[in-house]
Structures are given as structure tokens and as C-alpha cells.
């Protein structure tokens, strides 16, 4: 079985400061891990994914995440927050054998203050 825990339900940062959204995973298999973003009244957009290649994954809009097997973590970071980054972020785990069976975390709401 696999699952993810997003450690913060809400994160608030000031514009221009770093962003850290934390995610721990549990998986019986070698996992694939993803971060998705959901803006209000919009669908889910893929930010980045880890599928057994490089452990440091770079995504869109300046986001990146590092897969740390020893810590079972896949935290999302960005050096400098923009107002447009305000949204709900979901960490997702799937078994490597079937990416379609996605297990979402509960989400972290990111607020960016001017």
C-alpha cells in the first residue's frame, strides 16, 4: 500500500521568500512521486515528477523537489515565491507499475503575502 502525508495544511510566505512544502511518503513498492498544483476553480496541473531517474527533480515555474529515500520524503521547494504561486498543492504517490492509481495527500494551501 502507498500513501503520502503532507505535513502542513497551510503555509504562508511573503513574496520573494523561499517556499517549502513538506511531503512524506509510505510505499511498499518503488514509488513514483508527483507534485500537482490546483488553482481555484481550475484543474490539476503537474509541477514535477520523480520516476527513478535523478533524485533532484526540477519542474515548472521554478519549483523543484528532492527524493530522499532514507527520509521517505519528497519536499517541494522554490527559492522565491511569486503572488501567482498562491494555490493548493498536492503530493501524490503511485506504484511504479501503474501511474494511474494515484494516492493524493490532503493538500497544502500556499498563501503568498505582498
Amino acid at each position, binding site marked *: 500500500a502507498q500513501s503520502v502525508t503532507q505535513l502542513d495544511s497551510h503555509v504562508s510566505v511573503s513574496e520573494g521568500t523561499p517556499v517549502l512544502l513538506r511531503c512524506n511518503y509510505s510505499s511498499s513498492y518503488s514509488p513514483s512521486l508527483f507534485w500537482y498544483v490546483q488553482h481555484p476553480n481550475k484543474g490539476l496541473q503537474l509541477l514535477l*515528477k520523480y*520516476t527513478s531517474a535523478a533524485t533532484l527533480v526540477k519542474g515548472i515555474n521554478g519549483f523543484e523537489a528532492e527524493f530522499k529515500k532514507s527520509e521517505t520524503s519528497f519536499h517541494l521547494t522554490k527559492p522565491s515565491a511569486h503572488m501567482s504561486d498562491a494555490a493548493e498543492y498536492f503530493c501524490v504517490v503511485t506504484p511504479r*507499475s501503474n*501511474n494511474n492509481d*494515484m494516492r493524493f495527500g490532503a493538500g497544502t494551501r500556499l498563501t503568498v503575502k505582498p
Partner: protein
Amino acid sequence: DAGVTQSPTHLIKTRGQQVTLRCSPISGHKSVSWYQQVLGQGPQFIFQYYEKEERGRGNFPDRFSARQFPNYSSELNVNALLLGDSALYLCASSLSDRDRGLSGSGNTIYFGEGSWLTVV
């Protein structure tokens, strides 16, 4: 190219009624999955279909059913609606039902904007 399209975008139903939600995948995609997202929570996996066959099912009651058509579009049906069925229903499509292996490219899954269902 059009992304994943879903219809209707919003609908209101009464308890006990039945609803059908529709999804058209990205052209060339053969796999369609359905997710339920209750307000304030992450999406939960309901079904996956590939080449018109059910390939995965989440922990949902038999009131939920789905099918995939020869053109790879899909319908999600929910019978005997309950208030708790009120949610955003998301459809996702991908090329394959499985990861592409060790290439690292993976099997990217694309989501539609969803159908908002309110049960009153």
C-alpha cells in the same frame, strides 16, 4: 490540441437521483481515470479504464460505475445519490495504463477541470 474535457461543468441533483458525467481524453490517450475530490480534501481514485477494460477500482460503493467507449471517451455514473456525493469529479487521461519503465519519462497523467456535482 485540446486537453481533457469534461461535461457538464456544474450540476445540481436531488438525493436519490442518478447522474452521468462525461470525459473526453486527450487525442491518442487510451487510459482514463476518475477521481472524486470532496471540498477541502485531496482527490480520491475511483476507477481506471484502459482499452475499454476496467484496470483499477478505488474504495467506492457499487453505486459508482463507469465505462469507456471505442473512441476512449468515458462516462461515470452514480446512482441513488447521497448528500456526501457532492464533490468535484475529475477525469484524467494518459497514453498508457502503466509507467514506461526506467526511462524516467514516466506516463504523464493530465487532468480535466472537473465536474462540480451538488446533491441537495
